[in-house]
């Protein structure tokens, strides 16, 4: 593998890791909140979270491209705060990935949280556990497997992202050229040997991750 390809591997892992951490920090409370409430406004927020599942990535890519540009407000605010430009940077990719992978994290968590019996929470409450205590000591341990599934799906989906990154990343080796883009670049340059290598690597990686995930008793996570 060439240095550019290694850079793409490192960049992809870094992007997936950073995005997954942010996704879990954002997605867990959001999923908990969504799972405990009902109503039209909840349905609206759920639909908003699920939008990336059905919309073409070009829609999100297009809006992000406009929003992150140096002449747009979000882009300007970012520049004021950090001194760096947001468009076509690693941070832009993280923002895109977090939005794009959000349903993959929120939906499994929401299902798991809904399945937590209210009686367990009530029991914990009678033992003096505050809501935060209940969440930490009852909900999280019960949903450990789902948390792992959510994190793994968020990670895998970020590794597999293409359309949004292509639109807001700009295909810059070592900076925004993640594996899927590097593969596209190889295909365009008709370097099919390198394309095969990257494609096969991605297939094997994703397959391994999903097998580990679906193997029911394997890791003995939760129940």
């Amino acid at each position: 593998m060439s240095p550019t390809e290694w850079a793409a591997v490192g960049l992809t892992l870094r992007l997936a890791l950073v995005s997954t951490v942010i996704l879990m920090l954002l997605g867990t409370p959001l999923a908990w909140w969504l799972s405990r409430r009902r109503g039209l406004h909840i349905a609206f927020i759920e639909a908003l979270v699920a939008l990336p599942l059905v919309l073409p990535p070009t829609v999100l890519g297009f809006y992000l491209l406009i929003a992150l540009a140096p002449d747009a407000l979000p882009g300007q605010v970012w520049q004021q705060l950090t001194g760096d430009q947001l468009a076509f940077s690693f941070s832009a990719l993280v923002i895109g990935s977090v939005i794009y992978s959000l349903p993959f994290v929120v939906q499994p968590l929401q299902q798991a949280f809904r399945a937590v019996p209210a009686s367990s929470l009530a029991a914990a409450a009678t033992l003096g556990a505050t809501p935060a205590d209940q969440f930490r000591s009852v909900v999280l341990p019960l949903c450990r497997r789902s948390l792992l599934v959510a994190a793994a799906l968020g990670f895998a989906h970020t590794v597999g992202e293409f359309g949004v990154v292509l639109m807001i990343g700009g295909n810059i080796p070592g900076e925004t050229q993640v594996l899927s883009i590097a593969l596209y670049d190889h295909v365009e340059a008709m370097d099919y040997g390198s394309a095969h290598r990257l494609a096969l690597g991605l297939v094997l990686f994703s397959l391994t991750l999903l097998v580990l995930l679906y193997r029911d008793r394997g890791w003995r996570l939760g129940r």
Partner: protein
Amino acid sequence: MVPGTNTHPVTSELIYNGWMRPRSSDLTWTTLVRIVTAAALLCVTIDGVGAQQPLRIAVAANFRDAAGHIAERFQREQGIPITISSASTGVLASQLQRGAPFDVLLAADRQRPNALAEAGHALVEPTCYALGRLVLLGANSADWRAELADSERSLAMANPRSAPYGQAALAVLERADVADAGKRRVVMGANVQQAFQFWHSGAADLALVARSLSPEAGVLIPADWHEPIEQYALISAASTRPQQAKAFLDYLTKPAQALLQARGYEACP
């Protein structure tokens, strides 16, 4: 499982504190933290491979191969590392306009670099670095006009909206006086390289692409069939290493010219 029915205070407390304690075979939170830390360290290590900040060059698709060779030589002779991003001229120009951190743009036309310069995105006046020529691939050189005019034969070209070579191809098609032109299956690549790939894979019978993609094969289209494809280079006003960018442009417009002409380009007018 959760013995939620147990109400004896002492046992309940034991269970309350006990069930969350992981069994030894479980993947614990500590293990998860370890995995994440290890992955983070791995990322940092892999990342360290390309330590020196390179000169970033955005290259129109037709020039990608040539730019790769020139960059390699330039890198060897002057010790300045280069990364190349390739797309159609239109895509690259709009990315640069939206703040993409390119130091140099090697476009395939004159209009877009000049428009960028007028909008304040250029450090110096854009300069011509090559003159491109169009070839027809897949046709017999004797009666290529007839083949080009035959709407039964599918044709690959770059999208004229974003690619200058696509625009030139469109002009050629208009001039070729294709009978029943609406019937023809035209496949459009996002850039000229992709159009070439479509033809190369057999998906299209003919292709109107840059000569640089296939200097040995194809029929050279007469230069007066389309507007001259003057390829202009621009140094971005936002470049963080303008000296190196200028050095590269000097290299491109002087010592590298012989190499360009061997690859199917002509000298600028």
